[in-house]
């Protein structure tokens, strides 16, 4: 953006800056006073004064006084690493899955879950919607959830069952510092902001509306869209427009997760791809959508057992972990086998 006409300098100085190519604040961020002096043919002190004036107008606080050229809002990798280790994660109630995910679903990241029908994607997302509300005293995140349902698979009775399981689990931890509201099933259900949308226009509208919604509801720590695919598999003659809409939606969701520090979980479907005479099942919405998520989890069956596979992750290895779905929600396989006896 050309800001040169608002800078508090005399016209001659501004024209010198423009002639040398400095028209935006960003272009003046990284330049040292001597380089600037050389470029616009002024003395070094003059250049230093110019830079100081501009830095003083700038509201950013991450500059050191010596003008070390840091971009607005940039952090060092060390700061990022420290921050990442303190990031909280949402447990999935299944120990193997949690270790697969490096502790659970990470906040500030977009995770996609895909799989064939009936594998447990909706169960997974409902379990996360309950588990995000586990209070901090019990090693949880203690937040609320926005559940965007596009398929009508969210059944309150199932959420009730899972909430009961969660409450039973909290009871078993017997933490004295836990306030009684976390042991009441109704609390868990009332903390779910449920949106039911019936076509892709509504889906786009809800995602656009999320920013404002989150301003008013700061305790939301999880957004679930189940499923993000359903309304985009018809009504689009032109695939490129679909790709554009999807990528803008993906960008928005990434931005929301980053800025509001919450986790976004997207549920995706699978489709068949024929290549070289063999048909494979691949995640739906195409190749370009694969870039919209940070992590991708694929759920599949093997010999009557459900597995989750970490297909894409910036930091975690690609391994599989088994899990089960029971009356109380998701759980690990050993627990299930033990309970059966």
């Amino acid at each position: 953006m050309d800001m040169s006409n608002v800078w508090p300098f005399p016209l001659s100085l501004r024209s010198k800056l423009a002639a040398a190519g400095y028209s935006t604040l960003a272009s003046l961020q990284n330049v040292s006073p001597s380089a600037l002096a050389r470029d616009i043919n002024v003395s070094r002190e003059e250049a230093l004064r110019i830079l100081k004036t501009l830095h003083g107008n700038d509201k950013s606080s991450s500059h050191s006084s010596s003008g070390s050229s840091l971009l607005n809002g940039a952090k060092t990798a060390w700061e990022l690493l420290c921050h990442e280790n303190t990031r909280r994660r949402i447990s999935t109630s299944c120990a193997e899955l949690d270790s697969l995910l490096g502790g659970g679903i990470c906040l500030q990241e977009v995770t996609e879950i895909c799989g064939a029908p009936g594998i447990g994607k909706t169960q997974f997302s409902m379990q996360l919607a309950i588990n995000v509300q586990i209070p901090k005293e019990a090693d949880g995140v203690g937040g609320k959830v926005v559940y965007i349902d596009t398929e009508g698979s969210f059944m309150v009775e199932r959420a009730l069952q899972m909430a009961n399981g969660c409450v039973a689990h909290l009871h078993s931890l017997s933490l004295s510092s836990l306030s009684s509201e976390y042991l009441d099933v109704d609390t868990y259900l009332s903390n779910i902001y449920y949106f039911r949308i019936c076509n892709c226009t509504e889906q786009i509208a809800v995602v656009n509306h999320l920013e404002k919604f989150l301003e008013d509801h700061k305790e939301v720590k999880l957004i679930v869209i189940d499923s993000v695919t359903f309304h985009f598999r018809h009504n689009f003659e032109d695939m490129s427009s679909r790709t554009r809409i999807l990528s803008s939606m993906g960008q928005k969701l990434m931005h929301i997760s980053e800025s509001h520090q919450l986790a976004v979980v997207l549920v995706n479907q699978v489709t068949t791809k024929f290549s070289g005479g063999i048909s494979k099942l691949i995640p739906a919405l195409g190749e370009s959508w694969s870039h919209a998520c940070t992590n991708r989890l694929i759920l599949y069956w093997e010999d009557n057992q459900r597995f989750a596979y970490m297909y894409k992750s910036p930091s975690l290895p690609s391994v599989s972990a088994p899990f089960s779905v029971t009356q109380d929600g998701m759980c690990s396989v050993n627990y299930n086998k033990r309970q059966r006896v």
Partner: protein
Amino acid sequence: MSRKRCAPLPSVPKLTRKCSLGCPILDSFLNGGIPCGSITELVGECGSGKTQICLQVLLSAQMPLSQGGLNASSVYIYTESYFPFKRLQQLAKGFLDAGKLSLGILPTQKKFIFPENGFEPHCLEEDSTMTGLRKNMCPYLDNDKSNSASITHGLVTGSGDINPQGNGAGILQDHELHGTLSNEKVRDCHHVYNDISSSYDQTYSNKFPPKRPKISEVDVELHEYNHPCDNIFVQSIQNVEELNVYLDQVHLLLSRSLIMPVRLIVIDSIAALFRSDFNNSLKDLTMRTEWFFKISSKLKTYAHDYDIAVLVTNQVVDDVGSESLITQNSVHGMLSGNFGSLISSGRKVMPALGIGWSHCINTRLFLSRFSPPEWQAQPEYQHIGSSKASGRSIYIADPKQVNSDDLGSGYQISVLQQLESELPDDLLLTLSPKKCPSMNTVSGKPNVPYSYLERKTANISGHGYLQHGSLEKTDDVKDFGRPPLNSLRRKLQVIFAPHLPPSSCEFMVTTNQIFGVTTSSPVQPVCNKECKY
């Protein structure tokens, strides 16, 4: 969709209403019945009972809310051949006899003309009642039923001396939307004319001189009997474009406020729409998948907006193995559902329409037929015919006992049929593997062992052996230890559902109803032990 949708606001999700199936065992298996607000699919091979269950749900949806029904009318869309009207009437009769449904009585008000000289009153709105309106019916209603009646039953009220009976709230109900009529209405039509003219005569001749007063128009308060079949709207659909158009019209029907609003849509079957028009080419398959999502998106929108239940039936295809869609167990193969256990009539099957359609439904229920493994294990069970009462095949146990010279299979069938007709209605006859004395010491003829069991629970109530021409009962045995040796067993299995664990339940189809059974000692495990319940 013409329904106004406003800015996205979070809504409070309510407990899903369920539509009972009409049988307490099946209802508890499905945690209440067919859920509203989502699409439920019944998938199974031909003859597995899909249409039967659909017909029964059409009736059970009319049951009052207190009994688990929806107190609602239904729309039945059929795509294959004909509408099973006779079977629906059979089931309706079963429901009426069992007291689950009753003939509803609707107060209504119509105008009558009493001609001065004649005795027969004419209803002013005769043309505008069922007969007439159904001629200019909206295109989605079935017009080929010729049973029509304008009035069924009534009491004349009028200006003057005749007391009105019943309440005065006569509102012309939306009778014009009833697509089918029962035979009772036709009968009652004539009855009414007699009623009105006789009451007219009686009242007036006692109080007044024979000269008739000049009444030209009289408001008549009528009571109309509403047969359960009246609350079902049927439509035949041939291809998917037609279905798309029809669903837009159904929207009008859903938004109308009837006495019994439409709260159930049944499509039987959705597979037939897609199996002929689309080739196996990639382009056609992609187009077909788009149609899946278009149709199911519309259905789900209605399901949510009007809180209705949608029931769809699907067919099966043979599961041929690795050359078709993936059956490899690997993440890149991504097994398309846990289909390993779908067996019907002894062969491996999987639902038709592929994985695209599987994504469009919320709940999938698989219906199958099977024979207990004893049949395969013991080849000496010989098929001798079918029972006249139930139509089931009858096998005879240990036919070596039977001397084939003078006891042909025809005799055996007739004896068993006679036996079945002698049993009370709540008992079923089947053959048992229990050993009995092979030869009757008295008559010298061989014995045919049988057992009878309670219809409702399929628990063995007693057994005996059949002797030549007569019925001998031995001591009743409460727990027989082995399940009944029926030639055909039916199973309803949950493949996936958001609110149900994978499990199965057996059921039976009889003349009066479809009901679930709990077997005392099941041949196969009733519940797939994936989930702890």
